[in-house]
Each structure stands twice: as C-alpha cells, then as structure tokens.
C-alpha cells in the first residue's frame, strides 16, 4: 500500500481494509529499511506517529474524520513543529525545539494527518541538490549515486520511495519543482501568499512559498485544500478566497490555450527532455487544448536577478541567528562580536555563508543601486513578460529542469553551475506565479519533469490540467525499485 494515492488510502481507511495504525507502521517499517541509504529523514517521529494514528482511527470511528484523517505525511524540516526538532538541516539549529507550531503543520494536524517525521533538505533551503545539509546528502531513489534535487530533496525522495503518502516542501526558486522532477513525483508551488509562512523558517521572504509534494495532481489538490488560506499571523498571506481544488478536477481542456515559451526550448535543453516535452504537448492537443508559441524575453536575466534578490533577503533574515536567543552558541566567546562571528561561522555551512556575504555586499553602501535596485527592476520586466503572455494564453507548458538528476558531487564545486539548474523555475518564483511540476517521461531510468505555469491564484486550473494529463498517461504511477 506504500505507493497508493491519498484518495485510495482514504478509501481503504473508510472501508476498514486497513487502519491508520497499520498504514503508519507500514511506512515506519519502510523508513527503517531504506532511510539509512536514502537519508530522507532528519527526524523520525515513530512514537508520536503511532499515537497520532491511534487517535485518527478513533476519530474515524466516531465519524469525526478530517480531510486527511489517518494519512501519514512528512514535513520538510523548516516548518516549526512544537516539541519536535526543527533544524533547517543546519548545525545552527541542530538543537532547536520550537515552542510553537507553523500554520502549515498545524493545518495538517487539524485535518487529521499523521506526521511520520521531518525531512532532510539543503541547509536553510539554499541549494539545488540536497548536498548542502548538515545531516549529509539525500540520495535519489531512482539511482542512489545521483542527487534528488533540492532544496526539498528529502521530501521528494521520501514520496518517490514510498516512505510516506505525501510531504510538504517549500519553493523559493524551484525547491519543490526541481526535486519533484528529479524524483518523478508531482509538486506544486502555489501563488506567492497562497499559503501562510508563519513558522516556516525564512530564507527570502518575497519569494518563499510552501506547497504539496505527492504522487499526483489529484493528491496535490487535496493537500492544497488543507494548506491554503489567509492567516492573520502572516500579513503577506493572500486574502483571496480559496477554490475547491478537488471539485475542479473534472473539467475538460477543450478551449484551453497553452503557451510554449520559446526561450525554454533552446539548445541548453537535453534532447531527451525535449522529446518527452513534445510527447506531452501532443497529449494536451489530443485533450483539446490549442498550442501557441509565446515569448518571455527576459528569461535569461532571471537567474542573475534571483541571485541578488534572494541572497539580499537571506542576509537580512539570517541575521536573527546570533547565538543569543535560540540555536547554537560557540564555546567561551571572548566578547560580543566574537560570540556573533564564531557562532555564525560554526553554525552555517559554506553555501549559506556565501549567500549571506553576497547579500550583505549587494545591500551595502555604494552597491545597492547597481545590484539590488537593478535586480528589482529586472524582476518587474520578468513579471511583465508573464503578464503579457497570459494576455494570450491560459497556461504555459515547459520543462521543469534542463537535465535529469545529476551524479552527487558533479556540480557542487561550482556555485554558478549549480545556480543555473534553476533556470526554468526561477522566473515563475520572481513573478510570484503558481507552477506545477509533474513527471512526463524517463531518460535512462531517470524521471523527466514537465512544468505547467498558471496565472495568479489559478491553482485550480493548473491542478485540473495536471490531472487531465495524468488520466491519459501513467508516468506518475512509475516508482523506483529499491535495493
């Protein structure tokens, strides 16, 4: 039952084919079996999970079942979970037990979901390979010599390996979509502000957004229903009404116009991925959609602009880790500056330090206009490209990544090479638009990811388009054979 969809699992629970305790124990057994190799989990919450499953079974018995009652999930280790270690995969927070619950995880608890544990990630969500974790890299379940993508690599690998029914992730420049593509699962980055950021440890506040990672668009719709909505405790969360995502999954695609941004189909794209995309385009045509080429002319500037804006925001957000109020503190500080400087040098890994320094540099006197303000102006140009495109089409269809999962260590020596991994996901992040990544093929046994981009708050349309595709294809049903 490890690879069943959430709706199948809910059905099994309702029909009493199995209990939540049985289901939870089954996943926990798989975690025990495979986590040593894959390293998906930083914390396995075995006792709490079984206890939550017992409660869920009782609630179902009394007819008080929530939307996800008894479904075992895993949370990325940057959502604060009261009483459970929340490390952000950093040495800095390797002792941090939050005194409060994030809105996202609280909503999962209220919906009856069982939390199996906290998943590995790139430290502070900075990375595209999950190699920047204080707790060691995650391995891709399709080929353990390769990366799962990042930063939500542990969540993606755990779903792909059948170690949980679904997981949460966060996406700042592609951190849900790229690992979803590398691991052959479905992941949604909603519109900026659709989901509360309260209790989500901040990386870049104008970009960060939580989202679901699961086996299908249908499962993502169910999870988004639980996660989405305004939160008075996050002033940037959107006031916009929440759609009925699952109810919208039956709509036909006839009359829908899908745009192909030509800048995403260039020489840089792996030809096998290009071929898989062409097949997906044909599937959409056969579903009744009209295909049209569009242009997003400022695409190539998105990665440079992102690597000014995101580090600038990160340098401000990560100033709070000072060794005074929470987290690690260095031993025997000589004075206050020594306390700050050694705590931060010991607490943060190399990539986090690079980004803090770049961010500090671009915000410092004399460089602000040339870097930070220029990047924000380019951000406007990138958003305008999308606004223009959505004047002509309903959705955009493009690859999620320029290549498939790469070998561990192959890009970690060159930061810029690693940054370019996110060329197809960063533009949408800068514009704040929703995007869905879903599997659309395989190359040498490795999954290929398709990306659908929607207009603001059109998650329902995106999920429906993903679901219609998954009714015609079975790429989302493929799963790796574990050793």
């Amino acid at each position, binding site marked *: 039952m490890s690879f069943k969809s959430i709706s199948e699992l809910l059905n099994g629970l309702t029909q009493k084919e199995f209990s939540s305790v049985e289901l939870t124990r089954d996943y926990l057994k798989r975690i025990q079996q495979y986590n040593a190799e894959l390293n998906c989990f930083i914390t396995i919450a075995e006792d709490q999970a079984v206890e939550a499953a017992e409660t869920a079974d009782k609630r179902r018995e009394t007819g008080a079942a929530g939307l996800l009652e008894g479904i075992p999930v895993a949370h990325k280790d940057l959502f604060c979970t009261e009483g459970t270690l929340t490390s952000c995969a950093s040495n800095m927070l390797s002792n941090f*037990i*939050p*005194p409060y619950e994030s809105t996202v995880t609280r909503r999962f608890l209220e919906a009856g979901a069982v939390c199996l544990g906290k998943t590995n990630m790139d430290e502070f969500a900075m990375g595209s390979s999950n190699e920047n974790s204080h707790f060691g890299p995650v391995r891709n379940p399709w080929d353990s010599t390769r990366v799962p993508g990042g930063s939500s690599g542990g969540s993606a690998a755990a779903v792909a390996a059948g170690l949980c029914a679904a997981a949460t992730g966060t996406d700042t420049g592609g951190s849900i979509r790229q690992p979803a593509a590398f691991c052959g699962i479905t992941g949604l980055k909603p*519109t*900026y*502000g659709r989901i509360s950021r309260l209790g989500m440890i901040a990386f870049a506040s*104008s970009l960060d957004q939580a989202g679901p990672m699961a086996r299908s668009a249908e499962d993502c719709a169910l999870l988004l229903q639980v996660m989405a909505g305004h939160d008075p405790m996050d*002033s*940037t969360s*959107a006031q916009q009404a929440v759609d009925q995502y699952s109810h919208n999954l039956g709509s036909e695609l006839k009359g829908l116009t899908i745009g192909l941004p030509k800048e995403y189909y260039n020489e840089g794209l792996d030809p096998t991925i290009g071929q898989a995309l062409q097949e997906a385009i044909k599937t959409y045509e056969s579903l009744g959609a009209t295909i049209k080429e569009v242009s997003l002319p400022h695409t190539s*500037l998105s990665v*440079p602009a992102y*690597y*000014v804006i995101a580090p600038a925001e990160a*340098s401000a957000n990560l*100033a709070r880790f*000072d060794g*005074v*109020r*929470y*987290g*690690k*503190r260095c031993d025997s500080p*000589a*004075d*206050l*500056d*020594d*306390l*700050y*400087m*050694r705590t*931060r*040098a010991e607490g943060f890994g190399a990539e986090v*330090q*690079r980004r*803090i*320094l*770049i*961010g*500090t*540099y671009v915000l*410092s006197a004399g460089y602000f206009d*040339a*870097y930070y*303000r*220029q*990047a924000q*102006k*380019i*951000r*406007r*140009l990138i*958003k305008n490209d999308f606004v223009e495109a959505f004047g002509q089409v309903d959705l955009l269809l493009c690859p999620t990544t320029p290549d498939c999962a790469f070998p561990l260590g192959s890009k970690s020596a*060159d*930061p*810029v090479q690693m*940054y370019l991994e996110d060329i197809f996901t960063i533009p949408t992040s800068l514009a*704040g*638009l929703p995007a869905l990544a879903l599997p659309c093929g395989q190359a040498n046994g490795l999954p290929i990811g398709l990306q659908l981009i929607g207009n603001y708050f059109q998650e329902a349309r995106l999920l429906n388009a993903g679901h219609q595709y998954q009714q015609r294809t079975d790429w989302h049903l493929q799963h790796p054979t574990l050793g």
Partner: protein
Amino acid sequence: MTIKSEEVEKIAFLARLRVAEDNRGKLTEDLSQILDFVDQMKAVDTRNVTPLSNPLEMHQILRPDTVTEENQRDRLQAVAPATELGLFLVPKVIE
C-alpha cells in the same frame, strides 16, 4: 577579481561571520565568480522601470494597536543558550 580579499573581510564583519584565514582566497574567488555572473544585469537599460519588491504588489496591512499576545517569556527563553532572571545572557559589553 570583481571583489578583493579586503572587501570580503569588510563584508564578513558587517555580516558578523568569521572567515578563516586559509579560506579567504577560495571564498574571494567564489564570490567574484557569482558577482561576475550577476553582472549580466548591468547591460539592461532599466531607466524607466519601477522596482518590484512584492510580486503581488501588496502593501503592508495594519491592525489595531491592541495587546494580542500573552506573556510567554519562560517558554520562549527555554530554547535560549543562556538566560538569567528572564534576561538573555551575553558577554560583558560595558567596561
């Protein structure tokens, strides 16, 4: 090099990050490489473009200035490295 070793030292102090002596060269190289890469932005004429800081162009919302939080000092300080009598302890800052 777009950025010099002395500048790295200066921004590292601004960011309160100790950089080990033997790592300074490599770090300067890495940061220069990143800055060279983002320098592509400079070729774009953006004279009449308004900067975009929030993708939805939302403005900060206000709430009435009333007390909404209870005092949770003990609970919140339980995760601090060092406290005494409800205060955070740091090395001596006043001689």
